[in-house]
């Protein structure tokens, strides 16, 4: 790579060729404002349509202003990032954008986290000239089980489109209409529910404004908490504890497990449990299923479907049901930890506590928006009573805590309740890409070989590379493992499986880039991929510190099998902990 010298705001800088003006300016500490641009470099995700034109700069010798986010530096270039011409243009363009944006900041769900609001503050916008005669582009509100689309607030940054099409290859969202009415929506402007949407929520995670938000379920939770006839049980997913602190100004990657438990108790939940417990249970079932399929395969059974695919991610389940329905018997039949938890809570635990099913409410706190849809699936209910009643996101929990006047940072650390609060390190790492399969390997190895696994850390399974693979020696049997996070990466592995070319025995797939730590319900990363890395390392840290790090050694799991389920993959386990999948290609309609 050759070096290029240029001048920005009268200061010289030398950069690699191919560097954009925006990045070169950052090297000088010049922070050119960007709005539509987003760079999650650790995940190889970049959105630069050069559409908002906020980042324009003056380049000497050019007729027009240049968007710094996508204009490459050239040798000898002279750039001005804050000349009168630039500042006036930037402000005028911002006024244009605001003139077509509802002035609902006070009541907007995104208020305080809105990048458009921040930009208005940064640019010092105090009025919107011509507002009185400015028509607004308005659209139909669309509410799905997980995501609300209020496109009046869309600024056409196209980040959601990049995530949905380029990264996830879901293709539910793309620009439609043109000119003033141009907006990002499903084809034919149908509802999200009738599109190929998987509810992964990556569109929500990157939306700079309140155009895409989660369906808010906190009021329902509050109503149940206030009802003395209900026993309200809460479970918290592993990735939540690694991110919740960010909502209260704590550093990304700071683990807040104890404070979170304490806050949930203060909110009035009767039992505060850990989804990690159910994650351990998932491993028991999934590892057993893997070993049995493997065994059958090794014995020459042609019907044994390999590779086995993990099934704990609901966005991923929606994806293959819609895109690869012909492979619906390939993934593990094990339910996700959220649903295993609900099934056990409303049977085993309810019986133990002598609580009637209809009097128990199971709430889950998830880093995920697809979980909202998952818990509403018909097959996850008994006589119309769902195993998990309500799923709220990390962000919703944070808002809930704030509303309850809880000073989160000063809370004491508390422990989860038992019996469903005890978990191993294996359950914890479910929250990051590679974690589920690492947890499964720890258990499968010992079950298969009968030997004790000395080194439980499988470094080769970790990292943020989109597709990873590893082979692990299972006493002479080489177990080949594939890992993909992000549905676009999953599609690559799935195509191979469909074409019979896959070389793996087991594949872990997470819909969201980074796994659950980067889920659609997590605190907004605002395009900073360092945050995702910090969350992942927090989970590995918690795993490291756990006294027990293999799921099958969880004493409460042992008791659960002894007292209630019998053994993994038993008939009862199958009834409560396993599911089946549907062909949802036909779900896609052009109805409105």
């Amino acid at each position, binding site marked *: 790579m050759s070096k290029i010298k240029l001048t920005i705001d009268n200061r010289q800088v030398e950069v690699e060729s191919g560097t954009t003006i925006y990045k070169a300016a950052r090297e000088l500490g010049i922070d050119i404002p960007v709005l539509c641009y987003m760079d999650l470099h650790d995940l190889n995700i970049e959105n630069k349509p*050069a559409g908002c034109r906020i980042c324009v700069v003056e380049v000497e010798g050019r007729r027009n202003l240049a968007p710094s986010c996508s204009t490459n530096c050239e040798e000898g270039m002279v750039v001005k990032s804050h000349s009168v011409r630039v500042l006036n243009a930037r402000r005028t363009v911002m006024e244009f954008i605001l003139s077509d944006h509802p002035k609902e900041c006070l009541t907007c769900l995104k208020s305080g986290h809105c990048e458009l609001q921040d930009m208005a503050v940064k640019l010092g916008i105090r009025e919107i000239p011509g507002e009185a005669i400015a028509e607004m582009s308005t659209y139909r509100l669309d509410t799905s089980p997980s995501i609300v689309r209020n496109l009046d607030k869309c600024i056409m940054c196209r980040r959601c489109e990049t995530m949905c099409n380029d990264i996830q290859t879901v293709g539910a969202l793309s620009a439609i209409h043109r000119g003033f009415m141009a907006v990002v929506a499903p084809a034919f402007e149908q509802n999200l529910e009738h599109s190929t949407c998987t509810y992964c929520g990556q569109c929500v995670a990157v939306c700079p404004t309140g155009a895409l938000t989660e369906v808010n379920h906190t009021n329902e939770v509050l109503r149940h908490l206030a009802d003395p006839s209900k026993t309200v049980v809460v479970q918290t997913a592993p990735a939540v504890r690694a991110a919740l602190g960010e909502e209260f100004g704590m550093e990304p990657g700071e683990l807040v497990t104890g404070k979170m438990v304490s806050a949930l108790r203060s909110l009035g939940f009767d039992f505060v449990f850990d989804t990690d417990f159910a994650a351990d249970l998932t491993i028991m079932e999934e590892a057993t299923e893997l070993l049995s399929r493997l065994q059958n395969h090794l014995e020459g059974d042609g019907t044994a479907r390999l590779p086995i695919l993990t099934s704990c991610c609901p966005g991923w389940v929606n994806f293959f049901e819609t895109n690869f329905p012909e492979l619906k018997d390939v993934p593990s039949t094990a339910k996700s930890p959220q649903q295993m938890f609900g099934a056990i809570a409303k049977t085993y635990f309810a019986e133990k506590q002598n609580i009637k099913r209809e009097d128990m409410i199971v709430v889950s706190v998830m880093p995920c928006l697809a979980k909202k849809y998952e818990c509403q699936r018909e097959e996850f209910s008994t006589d119309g009573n769902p195993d998990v009643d309500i799923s709220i996101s990390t962000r919703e929990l944070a808002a809930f805590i704030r509303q309850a006047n809880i000073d989160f940072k000063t809370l004491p650390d508390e422990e989860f309740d038992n019996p469903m609060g005890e978990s191993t390190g294996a359950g914890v790492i479910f929250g990051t890409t590679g974690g589920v399969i690492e947890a499964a390997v720890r258990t499968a190895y010992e079950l298969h070989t009968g030997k004790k696994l000395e080194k439980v850390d499988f470094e080769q399974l970790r990292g943020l590379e989109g597709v990873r693979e590893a082979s692990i020696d299972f006493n002479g049997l080489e177990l080949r493992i594939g890992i993909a996070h992000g549905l676009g990466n999953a599609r690559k592995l799935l195509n191979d499986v469909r074409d019979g070319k896959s070389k793996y025995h087991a594949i872990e797939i997470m819909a969201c880039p980074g796994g659950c730590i980067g889920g659609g319900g997590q605190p907004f990363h605002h395009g900073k991929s360092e945050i995702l890395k910090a969350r992942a390392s927090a989970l590995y840290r918690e795993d490291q510190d756990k006294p027990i790090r293999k799921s099958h050694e969880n004493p409460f799991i042992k008791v659960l099998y002894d007292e209630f389920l019998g053994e993994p993959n038993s008939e009862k386990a199958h009834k409560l902990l396993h599911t089946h999948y549907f062909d949802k290609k036909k779900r896609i309609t052009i109805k409105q």
Partner: protein
Amino acid sequence: MHLLVCGGTGCRASESAGIEAKLKSELEKRSLDQSVQVISTGCFGFCEKGPIVKVMPDNTFYTQVTPADAETIVAEHVVKGRRVESLIYTDPSSKEKVEESAKMGFYKKQLRIALRNCGFINPENVDEYIARDGYLALGNIITGMKPQEAIEIMKESGLRGRGGAGFPTGLKWDLTARTEADQKYVVCNADEGDPGAFMDRSILEGDPHSVLEAMAICGYCIGSDKGLIYIRAEYPLAIERLKIALSQAREYGLLGNNIMGTEFSFDIELRYGAGAFVCGEETALIHSMEGLRGEPTLKPPFPSESGYNGKPTNVNNVETLANIPVIYLKGAKWFSSIGTEKSKGTKVFALAGKINNVGLIEVPMGTTLREVIFEIGGGIKDGKKFKSVQTGGPSGGCLTEKHLDTPIDFDNLIAAGSMMGSGGMIVMDEDDCMVSMARYYLEFTVEESCGKCAPCRIGNKRLHELLDHICKGNGKLEDLDRLVNMSNVIKDTSLCGLGQSSPNPVLSTINNFKDEYDAHVTDKKCPAGQCRDLMEYFIIEENCVGCTACARVCPVAAITGERKEPHLINPAICIKCGACMEKCKFDAIIIQ
């Protein structure tokens, strides 16, 4: 003897197909069908007086012919050798009959290079094109020239792109030729979108082979074997004739593998556009052909590096291509001897608006606007006063009296605050209001913006709203400053040529007709009497005889008065329909 009947879209719409059929049957009746041929040609350009029938070899030019006239033409002209006087064109200023086209004011100053075969040959017969030295240039080049030699000739000729931007064609070819790739493409941009412009359509309808030949030459020069013509689906006749031309060229071995027995292979495919104006922008056009949304992307990279499917692509406009075969036949020197210093050759213009001779003309670069409007165009309709001419289509500028002696070329038009564009020329007279004219053009760009970048998507809408506000009499003086600032910022920050030029009509009318804007905002008057909200109907007391005709015709009973007494219009009730003024026989009603 040949009877040439115009088969262009305009004349077709006025039953020229019926004329053709009638001529044929009349000839057949008299057993003359073997000695006299009826040929359907491309557009003659003189659309104002269509349908056109031209008799060769005596050059008689019949205008406004109807199918009923066909019998007279055959009986009189063909059989008796007498010209049909009633169908001969009368010069509107001298009132003299002009029998031959070469002597008509409309044709005298024209020099037809791109249109050389339009109105001359049957576009559906490749033999007629070949008889006019068609495919000779291609043959000469592929059998006797190295690609680089041919590119040098193109550079020497000085030909610049006729699509609007005026980029040197030879240089474009050279850049694409120099980019290494396993596949390159030649694209013909036939997405003619300027309202009122139809030169590309006429060329494709009248002389499709010249475009195919030029594309093959380009393919040879840049090292491509694949051509694509992107044509709007609204041009069915052009598409039909292109299809016929393609199959005839293939049949003759002029397209396909090993053209004329050489190593060179080249074939062409048609791609249809849905009529979005922005798809005339080359990157948007390429994305549309790729099956993506027709949206522009930032340049660089230019298509010559990365175009269709990421491969080097040379995009040339129809008119540019039509010039190319002749340049190779007559030489670069011949071509560069025509025109001005920096703009060589000719340019086709579509004359429209308040002008006597509406139609398609081709003149050498450097011809003045005065020559075009008053000599070729025959001056302003109904003896009105010339006010302004809009060149360059909806995103060009309005030029005035003081620009009339400007020699037309790329650079002069830009210097005058307008542009060449694709060659639209709309003439306005004293009755046209320049504020509502600017509003009208903005209406078009608002409609046709793709919506990708904020300044074009929202800014143009705001410009349009403000112009509308002013036309309705609600404008303030400071609004004019806002118009100018918004216009400058939209030009300065927009992503593609559409937004970078869409405010031109606003800026040029403010520059040239400031007093008219002032009148709208300060006096609340429209000097041209066009803005309905600023007009007031008024009865001159002295002229009114009290006949009550106006009161009786008024649909809203706004006029009161006794019989034989002067009447009065109540402006609060008046809806400004103009019915009273039309009815008044005493010129008593005026607009103020």
